[in-house]
């Protein structure tokens, strides 16, 4: 099942992850990720037939609370760390969306 990773795979993953990698990074990650995945392939030899996956160590628990109105951050504070925002209008500002 383990496959060797290609430069095309790295480009596809970088696009999924929203990372604009340069050529040197692509070459480095192709080599390094292939090495890590080859090492990780050892777990594929382990028999896990019928073994349930662990996504979380705590037993399933639902917590409930009363639906009360509580204070939240002021608009200036919420927008205060944004690279570009208009506090008066309550907006995060971004570059144009459609090309």
């Amino acid at each position: 099942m383990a496959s060797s990773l290609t430069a095309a795979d790295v480009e596809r993953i970088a696009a999924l992850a929203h990372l604009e990698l340069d050529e040197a990074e692509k070459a480095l990650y192709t080599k390094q990720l292939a090495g890590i995945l080859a090492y990780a392939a050892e777990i594929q030899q382990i028999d896990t037939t019928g073994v349930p996956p662990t996504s979380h160590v705590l037993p399933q628990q639902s917590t409930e609370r009363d639906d009360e109105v509580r204070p939240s951050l002021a608009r200036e504070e919420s927008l205060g760390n944004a690279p570009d925002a208009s506090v008066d209008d309550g907006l995060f500002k971004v570059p144009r969306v459609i090309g």
Partner: protein
Amino acid sequence: MTPPPTAGALRDAFVSGARSADDICRAALARIERHDPALHAFNTVAADRALARAAELDRFRARSRTGLEALPLAGVPVAVKDTICTRGIRTTASSRMLEQFVPPYDATAIIRLERAGAIVIGKTNCDEFAMGSSNENSAFGPVRNPWDRERTPGGSSGGSAAAVAAALTPIALGSDTGGSIRQPAALCGVVGLKPAYGRVSRYGLMAFASSLEQIGPFGRTVADAAHVLEAIAGVDPCDATTVSLPVPPLAAGLTGDIRGLRIGVPRALLDEGVEAGVRRAVTDALAVLEARGGRLVDIDLPRAKHAIPVYYLVATAEASSNLARYDGVRYGFRAAPEGDTDLHTMYCRTRDQGFGPEVKRRIMLGTYVLSAGYYEAYYLKAQQVRTLIRQDYEAAFEQVDAVAMPTSPTAAFRLGEKLADPLQMYLADVFTVSANLTGLPAVSVPCGFTPSRLPVGLQLVGRGFDEATILRIADAYERDTGWWGQMPEGVDAA
């Protein structure tokens, strides 16, 4: 040489009136000014906020002696890892992405520490977004190990460990996703505790791998670490994964009596790849525990050897999802526009320029193992083996009350030694990641030095939510050894 004051001693000096909080706080700031240029343990020193808080505590003491008695950390300076949000104090995760980020709120652990009387003195350097085992992934340069400045303090909470090792502060907070408290504690010769998963609120901790990580304490002594855990533990409506179990009295349970406790030793795990000086120190430590009445029991954890690949598949998958939020819109860095940049290009450039190499490597790996066609072979398989590792520990805890092993297979390695080979760096976490995969509590306690005088840590892993037993064993060990009071050469104790 007189050992530096513990948190307990500073608190007593403040409560009794022997020292003011202002005096304690200024002494800590002066030590940071004197020693930190060579160590680089701090990203930000919050002198103004700390002194204001100290003045508040001094006024409170003048008003209410009895109120003061209820504060277990009254007047004690604390260093906080820079992945834990502090209102009004820059919190960077040692990333260019958050270099100018000033949180508008405090993490729950910070609120609770301050409620216990502690003084937040600054934010400590770490691997970027807590990803690393050497501190070399900090965008601001590595922390240096106080015992040998050419060596790593460990990671990712290396700044917190170094700050306590050099007695800049008696206690510190870190976060532990795969060993990030325990491994630097071992490499710097201090106590570091990863609480059971769900014990401490993660609200306000910058998320890396949500199913694995916990905030926890560093201290020079086990008792100090226990006091901090008591202060920060407990259910929190802001983190639905905190459990409503009562927090037992931990510090009061440090009786020194471990007679009859069964301590499991996974011999097979220790045979491979453990440096001779580390193995000797750990073996000697086990003999000390036996002499105190602990019973050593050989155990087998057959699937634990697969913990590293399982960990790096699970942790990177969670990281790729958690770090999707850094997109240059709501907070943090945004890449400068070039010409008529559209939104999508801005996202991709921001993330390429804002994240360092190890963070990008992990986002890439995590995205890959979650992607169509690979999910079953890597991510799902890793989660199934995670179940098998849990079952190994469950079986072991039918025979024993705690499991003992080295915290790290080696003492502090040289800066640069493993930087070019990420896989070698990952193997440094072989003994620590299982406690994160299983959610079990684990503590690292100093257990001596290698022949080249580098600290070694003994790790004790406990049953679910049984921090009390591992702390009791660690404290009993500490009583028979004087490691906690030793100071690195060139760092005064006063």
